[in-house]
């Protein structure tokens, strides 16, 4: 039986036209091509995933006798930065922006939300806000059962946690954008190029904080309420999100939400300055970050 098979296969090899045969070698070659293609495909991804680490170790030697928070700054650097600032803002300075939110103080009044909507020309009909305040039961950080739609703020049986774009040091949204229409600027602010966004919404999918929002409709802002410092046109069909009020903070101001908070729960500042309020808070208080285990390295800390 097996002899016959051997003979047959030999016979067919001998008569095969144009040297065409099935062979194990060909098959192995095929497998080789599979592995090769997959490997080729993943190389750039691996390289770019490694790249930040290389940059980080290069920067590590720069600050001498530095601050205890320097290790955070080392992780926070520009990602996919095209070399020129985003069209609607001034170039970044040398700061590293960060925010600390005191959830013990927060009463859930949503004044930060409203101030943000007005400051950033968010469409009144758009159905989203950059800041979302979660109302949660006492006793745990249970996001899965958090309430966004609460009617009455300040309930003593609940606690409140505002969530917005965390300007992550490892922004999954920036990694996920197929066309580099969003990037992290040298001062840590993650921005979106509205003229380049292809509306694939992959950044909405990759963001663990639900911080990105798509303009499904033409954003409508009453003429007299428009902020001339923030782009409004051409926003339909692109993604937008919190920019740490880039139009204010890069000109010496603070964010609208920080300004609006009636209880002073928000502290905004420059993390690269060891004497700034945020730096001092991080050094003197015990802080935590939302979904720390995801490794996004958010630049908003919570303190309670």
């Amino acid at each position, binding site marked *: 039986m097996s002899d016959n098979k051997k003979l047959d296969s030999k016979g067919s090899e001998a008569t095969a036209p144009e040297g*065409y045969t099935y062979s194990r070698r060909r098959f192995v070659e095929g497998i080789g091509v599979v592995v090769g293609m997959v490997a080729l495909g993943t190389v750039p991804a691996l390289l770019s995933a490694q790249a930040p680490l290389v940059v980080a170790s290069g920067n590590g030697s720069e600050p001498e006798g530095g601050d205890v928070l320097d290790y955070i700054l080392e992780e926070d650097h520009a990602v996919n930065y095209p070399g020129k600032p985003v069209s609607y803002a001034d170039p970044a300075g040398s700061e590293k922006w960060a925010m600390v939110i005191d959830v013990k103080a927060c009463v859930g009044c949503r004044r930060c939300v409203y101030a943000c909507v007005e400051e950033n020309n968010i469409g009144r009909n758009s159905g989203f806000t950059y800041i979302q305040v979660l109302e949660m039961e006492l006793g745990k950080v249970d996001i899965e059962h958090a309430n966004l739609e609460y009617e009455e703020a300040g309930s003593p049986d609940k606690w409140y946690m505002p969530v917005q774009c965390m300007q992550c040091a490892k922004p999954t949204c920036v990694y996920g954008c197929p066309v580099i229409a969003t990037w992290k600027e040298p001062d840590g602010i993650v921005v979106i190029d509205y003229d380049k966004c292809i509306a*694939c919404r*992959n950044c909405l999918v990759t963001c663990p904080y639900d911080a990105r929002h798509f303009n*499904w409709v033409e954003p409508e802002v009453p003429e007299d309420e428009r902020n001339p410092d923030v782009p409004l046109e051409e926003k339909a069909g692109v993604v937008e999100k919190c920019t740490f009020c880039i139009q204010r903070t890069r000109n010496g101001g603070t964010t609208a939400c920080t300004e609006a908070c009636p209880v002073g729960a928000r502290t905004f500042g420059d993390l690269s300055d060891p004497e700034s309020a945020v730096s001092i808070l991080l050094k003197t208080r015990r802080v935590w970050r939302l979904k720390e285990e995801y490794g996004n390295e958010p630049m908003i800390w919570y303190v309670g």
Partner: protein
Amino acid sequence: MALVTTPRPGVKRFISVDFDLGALRTAGTRYWAFVTILLVGLTLGGLAWGNAMTQGGAAMAMRDAYPWGLWFTNYMYYVGLAAGGLVVYASVHLFGAEQFRPLSRLAVLLAGVFVMMALLGIITDMERPWRAVWMLLTPNPTSPFVYTGSAATLYMIVAFFDLWLLFTGKGGEKLAFRMTLIALPLAIYMHTTTAFVLSMNKSRELWNSAMMVPIFLTSATASGVAVLLIAAYILQHFGILKLTAKMFRSLSTLLATVIIIDLFMLFVEILSIFWPTSAKPGHTMRFSEFLTGRYAFAFVPVLVLGVTAFILLSRRSTRHLPRVQITASALYVIAVFMKRYSLMSMGFAINPLGQYAPPYAPSLTEGLLAIGILSLGMLIVTVSAKVLPLAVPEDEYGHGEALESGRLEPIADGATESG
């Protein structure tokens, strides 16, 4: 090889392929009625696209809670359906599965058309389609979208080039074999990267599992083989292809095998989600929606239809019946669509901040767009069935040496028996 014949009237030769336009003139009323229906579907799709372009996202049922909708379900689905064709085509050239040779041209045509439909879904969803050029100019290597998009585009080109090679016989068996060596890895690569679009998201617990990749591969192959089996029966019914019962039995055995692997992997995934030592609350509560929650209507049928299809295909007494094979295939084609839909929408239904959204249903515009794309794909296949030489000439069966060595029986004999 090919006999020199005087071309029949109405046969136009273009890029070395004989387009039998005369066949359209002799086509019956039923054929034209079907084409008319497809043209209506295509027109509706065109109008819907016009509407989507003028109104933008407002015309869609998608919102921040469901950033992707029917277009993405269909992208995954069509890319998957394209797999079957290639698996069959590759098994002819790579593994010597000669019984599938009569199907090879149809298989490759379907593969190309399905991927084209998948890509059209993306283009019609974009509010500014011209910005797609950025995918070529500044691709981001860390985005799975770049890989799946380029793989699909490449795959479509390779499939249509392959089809042309099959029609013209250029390069002979040797080139056909080498094309398989490109096309098969490319197909695996395409399905893998499509799964990556979902699985490479730590923000979405439901998808963030490496098991997504093999499940995508098997679902794709199973649904692809099933749809090919149905298409083959249809073309045989209209006398365009001559196929044997033996070939269909091989195809349905392949289908049953892939279905059971597919179901097995789904089973172990479910097990790891609910096992007390591995269950993570976020993952468990999301998956529970599939079994008992608001997405049960879409996911429970996946399991029921899948198991039914497998049982139909494995019962010894009935599995050779065309009726049974077609039913089982249809069940699995539907099951995989439901799976794609529920996987996509349930992944969004509870957002990263734990907020629920009611189940996603496409808007009229989205639905008509999908119908338009489906009509276009079916129109291409319908016209091709008449115009293009989809039937593999019998002198190519076993391509000579196999016949001589007497290892394989010529399939043509069986074809006349069953017909």
